[in-house]
Every structure is written in structure tokens, then in C-alpha cells.
């Protein structure tokens, strides 16, 4: 029982990170129907930027409380990632908006590779320990353990999701975003500037990715230039799982995927008599994805039929 509770907590933590990343994918996809393959790399840049800032601050001003350092590094990561994703869209996606559908996908993959390579050159390829800045003393919770970092992750996810929902549903920008997602041409006729809206979407997505990156780094304690790839891939799976283009779906898909992965990894060993171990946990996401798409091709909450023949 304790194992189950522990795996649920871990799953929720993992799932909220997936949800934050998946939102970036789903917003971009909703508006310009593009898989932004470089999204996972934005996460990685966010984590590495914050790692650099933290290292620098700990040297330059010792004695600063850990949460303050984390907050400042987080804010700087927001700015860096926002600017980066803005630039990516402007350079690699905007000129190709009316090209064959595969062209922007290839530039997206190219961007992802480019960012990974540049990060490897800038930060060197080794694994770097990410310092624990929040109190390391964990809470006991019905036999399971939850760390302060994990609580911070859950809290920050809840806050940022509420802010995002408010932004999309109750502000002028949010209305413009929804209008552009519905039909960019008509939205433009109504006085919305699609380019501005698309840029704003990329920046918001990047901020969420940077947040997720810092969370990921604090939770696992290491950063490296390839760290963005797998979470990015799984978060995209989560977005498809929930129904791509649908914000609520991305959150639901992310959290469900986190739970499935974590519970699955905890139980696959005993259930199969240790024939299959937790090293298979990385493929749960894809197996779930294949099942969901076979049974319900538009995802859990997706309404639109994926029909762009």
C-alpha cells in the first residue's frame, strides 16, 4: 500500500512536469499545426541556464537563501527561454508558414539538434550536479515520503496552470489566441495580429518549459544537454493523449501519463516475476499512445477529427 501511495506521489510530480511541457506543445500545435520538436530543448536550455546562474550566485554572494537563488535563476531562465523560443519561431518557422507541411517539421527537428549541439559546446557534455536549494528534509505522509522540492513542483504547477487558464479564457490576448487557433484568416480580419499572437504563444510555451526544466533538474539533481529530449517526447505523447490543441487535455494527458509511468514502473517487476523490469518504463508512454490513438484517434478530450487530407 505504501508503495502504491509513493508511486502515486511520484507519478503526480512527474505528471505535472509533463503537463507543463505538454501545454507548450499543444498551444503551438493548436495555432499553427506544427510539432515544435525544439520544445524539449527549450526546457534543457532553461535548466542549464538556471544551473549556471545558481552556480554563479552561490559563488558571488554566499549566504543568500536557497529559495531566493532558485527564484532568481528561474526568472532569468524564463527570460532566456522566452527570447530563445521567440527567435526560433521567427527564424525557423515563420518563413515556412505556407510551405509543404513537412518543411517546418524538418526545420523543427534541425533546431532541436542545433540547440542540443550548441548546448553541448557551451556547457560541455558531462552530467552536472544540480544543487538542492530547498530544504532536503522530507515529509512523512501515510508511509510515503514527499520532499519539499516535490511539494514545490506540485504547487508551482497548480499556480501556473491557474494563471494560464485565466490568461487564455479571460484576457484579450487569450481571446485572440483562441480566435487564431480557430481560424487565423478570419481572426486577422477581426483585427487580431496572427504574428503577434503566435509569438506570444511561443513565449508562453517557453516560460512553461523553463519552469518544467528547473523542476526536472531540481527533482532529479542532474543537468545535461540531452535532458530535454525524453521529457519532450513524452510530453508530446501526453498532449496527443489528451487531444492535441486542447489545454485541459494536455494537463489531463500529462498527469495520467505520469501516473501510468510511475505506477507501471513500480509494479511491472513483481507482476511479471521480474522478467520485465523498470527499465521498460520509458516505453509505457508509447504503448499507451498507440492504444489511445487506435481506440480514440483524436485523444481523450479532443473534439476535432484529425482530418487534414
Amino acid at each position, binding site marked *: 500500500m505504501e508503495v502504491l501511495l509513493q508511486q502515486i506521489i511520484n507519478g503526480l510530480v512527474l505528471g505535472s512536469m509533463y503537463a507543463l511541457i505538454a501545454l507548450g506543445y499543444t498551444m503551438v*500545435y493548436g495555432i499553427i*499545426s506544427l*510539432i515544435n520538436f525544439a520544445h524539449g530543448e527549450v526546457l534543457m536550455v532553461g535548466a542549464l541556464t538556471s544551473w549556471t546562474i545558481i552556480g554563479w550566485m552561490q559563488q558571488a554572494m554566499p549566504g543568500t537563501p536557497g529559495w531566493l537563488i532558485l527564484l532568481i535563476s528561474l526568472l532569468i531562465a524564463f527570460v532566456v527561454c522566452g527570447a530563445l523560443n521567440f527567435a526560433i519561431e521567427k*527564424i*525557423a518557422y515563420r*518563413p*515556412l508558414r505556407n*510551405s*509543404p*507541411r*513537412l*518543411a*517546418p*517539421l*524538418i*526545420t523543427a*527537428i*534541425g*533546431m532541436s*539538434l*542545433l540547440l*542540443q*549541439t*550548441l548546448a*553541448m*559546446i557551451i556547457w*560541455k557534455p558531462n552530467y552536472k550536479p544540480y544543487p538542492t536549494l530547498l530544504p532536503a528534509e522530507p515529509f512523512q505522509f501515510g508511509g510515503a515520503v514527499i520532499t519539499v522540492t516535490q511539494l514545490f513542483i506540485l504547487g508551482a504547477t497548480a499556480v501556473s496552470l491557474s494563471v494560464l487558464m485565466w490568461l487564455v479564457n479571460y484576457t484579450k490576448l487569450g481571446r485572440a489566441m483562441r480566435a487564431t487557433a480557430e481560424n487565423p484568416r478570419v481572426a486577422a480580419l477581426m483585427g487580431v495580429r496572427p504574428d503577434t499572437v503566435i509569438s506570444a504563444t511561443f513565449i508562453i510555451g517557453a516560460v512553461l518549459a523553463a519552469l518544467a526544466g528547473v523542476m526536472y533538474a531540481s527533482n532529479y539533481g542532474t543537468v545535461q544537454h540531452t535532458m530535454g529530449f525524453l521529457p519532450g*517526447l513524452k510530453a*508530446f*505523447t501526453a498532449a*496527443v493523449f489528451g487531444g*492535441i490543441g486542447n489545454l485541459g487535455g494536455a494537463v489531463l494527458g500529462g498527469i495520467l501519463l505520469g501516473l501510468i509511468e510511475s505506477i507501471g514502473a513500480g509494479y511491472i517487476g513483481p507482476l511479471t516475476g521480474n*522478467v520485465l*523490469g523498470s*527499465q*521498460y518504463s*520509458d*516505453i509505457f*508512454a*508509447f*504503448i499507451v*499512445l*498507440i492504444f489511445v*490513438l*487506435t481506440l480514440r*484517434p483524436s485523444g481523450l478530450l479532443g473534439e476535432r477529427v*484529425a*482530418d*487534414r*487530407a
Partner: protein
Amino acid sequence: MKSNKRVNFLVVAAVLLVLPLVLQQGGNAWVRILDMSLLYVLLALGLNIVVGYAGLLDLGYVAFFAVGAYMFALLGSPHLAEAFPFIAAAFPEGLHLPIWATIPAAAAVAGLFGVLLGAPTLKLRGDYLAIVTLGFGEIIRVFLNNLDRPVNLTNGPKGINQIDSMKFFGLDLGKTNHFFGFEIPSVSMYYYLFLALVIVSVIICHRLAHSRIGRAWMAIREDEIAAKAMGINTRNLKLLAFGMGATFGGVSGSMFAAFQGFVSPESFSLMESIMIVAMVVLGGIGHLPGVILGALLLAALPEVLRYVAGPLQAMTDGRLDSAILRQLLIALAMIVIMLMRPRGLWPSPDHGKMPVESIKS
């Protein structure tokens, strides 16, 4: 005009035949690059059937390459005999089946996997399909990495070695052969084998594109609903496209296994799938000369540059080593070429009209 074409053809043929003999003067490494480029051409041609003709974006193509390579490796190495006593009892020397058994087996199993992947994804289109195929590629790689227990089938991350080289008609491509007093090393022998395979594949692909099946694939690519309305059995044809593409992958995989003598899951990462897609798309999707150009460019150019990277590495105190430089160049090529020429370097003249034009000429 016509004789001009024939002269061109003869010149190209002569250059292709002599090329390895010239390059091997500079060392076998250069011929190796050539061999790998030809393998990539083979893979790109196979993927072109799926992506270019049928319009199904497959980001997990390397899985079929892996299946073919492992199949060949299992049937042509001592590994299975070491892992399973009953096989060791039957084949005390280890399983060393002739290539007439291993290559068809590799092709068939890969083709079967292609259909297996195709079946559940028939309803999906575009990006959904891309992500499912990507996931499939990862699943295969994870299994290859972990199937060393409970039974040691793939030998895990260590991979399988001591794979037989290509042997046929008393010819062993793994050794240096002598013809008419010429000494032809193993890499050059493989070059001729791969070249022959590429030529056969080009002919198959060309004929396919202009056949009833090829035209049906293109109809599905352009508008699936309309194609269905015209009486095309879209389900079977899509499965056929997956199966055919995968078979090409499987054959290339067995070539790769024999050529390297060693396979491990590392060679079949997602990066490889992406490279192959990039070759097809950068070259000119659905257009054979374009695909070949794309494959040669992306496979050979970075390898060649690897040899001039030494000074650069010294200049940047080791940060820019050859592997990083190669990755950087591929990434930049993908972005820049797409921005300059969104339809590829050498795109097909006009989609629907291709067969008609060729009849006229």
C-alpha cells in the same frame, strides 16, 4: 541528344566503378564512407516509398533497419548457439546460415514488423502517425537494449559481434580478394555489392512509382478521401507501403550487420531515423534523384569534414571535436536548406503529372 545521354550514362557508370579503386589509394576509410553513404541511399530509397509515395510520415524507420540487422546477426553469428544449449547441440559451430536464408529472413521479418506497425496506425494521419512511429522506433530500441534477460536474445547493450561477412558463390566479401592481379580489399567489395543493390532498388522504385500501385499511393498522398472514392483500397495499399518500406530497411539492415560484423542498439537511435527522414525531405520528397542526392549529401559530407576538423578542434581547445562538428553541420543543413528550398534540393517536377511526362519522353 540521345547519344549524348548514352555518353553521360557511360561516364557515370565508369566513374562509379573506378571510384573505390581510386579512393582506396588514400586509405580504406574513404571507401568506408562511400559504403556507408550507399547504405544510407538504400535506406532513404526505402523510406521514400513510405513518406514520398504514400505520404505517411514515418519517424521510426530505423526500427526496421534494426530488425533486419539483428535478424541477420542472430542467424549468422555464434551468439544464439552460446545462449541456447539446444541450438548449440544442433549447430556446434554456431548458427552460420548462408545469406540465401538470412537476407530473405531479415527482409521478411522486417516487412512483417512494417505491417504490424501499419495495422494499428491506419486511421492516423500526419503528425499523429509521426509520433506513433517515433514511439515504435523507441520501443524496438528499448527491447533490443533489454532482451538479454530472461533469455539472452539480443545480448543487451553489448550487442552481437562475430557476424558472418557476405559469402556467396565462393566469394567472401569479408576478405581481400584478387582479380586479374588486382588486389581488392573488403571495403571495395562491399562497395560493389551496395552499388548493385542501390541500382536494383532505384529500378524497383522507379517502376513502382509508375505502376498502378505507385499511382494509387500518390493518390492517397494527395487526397485520401478522393482516392477511396475512386475505388482504391486505401487500407491494403497503406499496409503495402509500410511493408515494402520496411523490407528495404530490413535488407539494408542485413547489409549493415554483415559489413560491420557487429550490431548494437546504439546504431539504431532516433537520431538515425531523423537523419533518414531528413535525407528524403531535403533531397526532394518522392523524387528519386533528389532522394539519392539528399542521402549522399547528408551521409558523406559530414564524414568528409570529419577529416578536416582536426585543426578546428585544436583551435577551440577540444570543444569542437569532429562528432560535434558533424552534428552541427547536419542541424544547420536541415534548417538552411528547408528555409531556402522548402520543397527540397531537387524536387519532383510536378506531383500528379510524373507518369505522363515520362511516357512522352
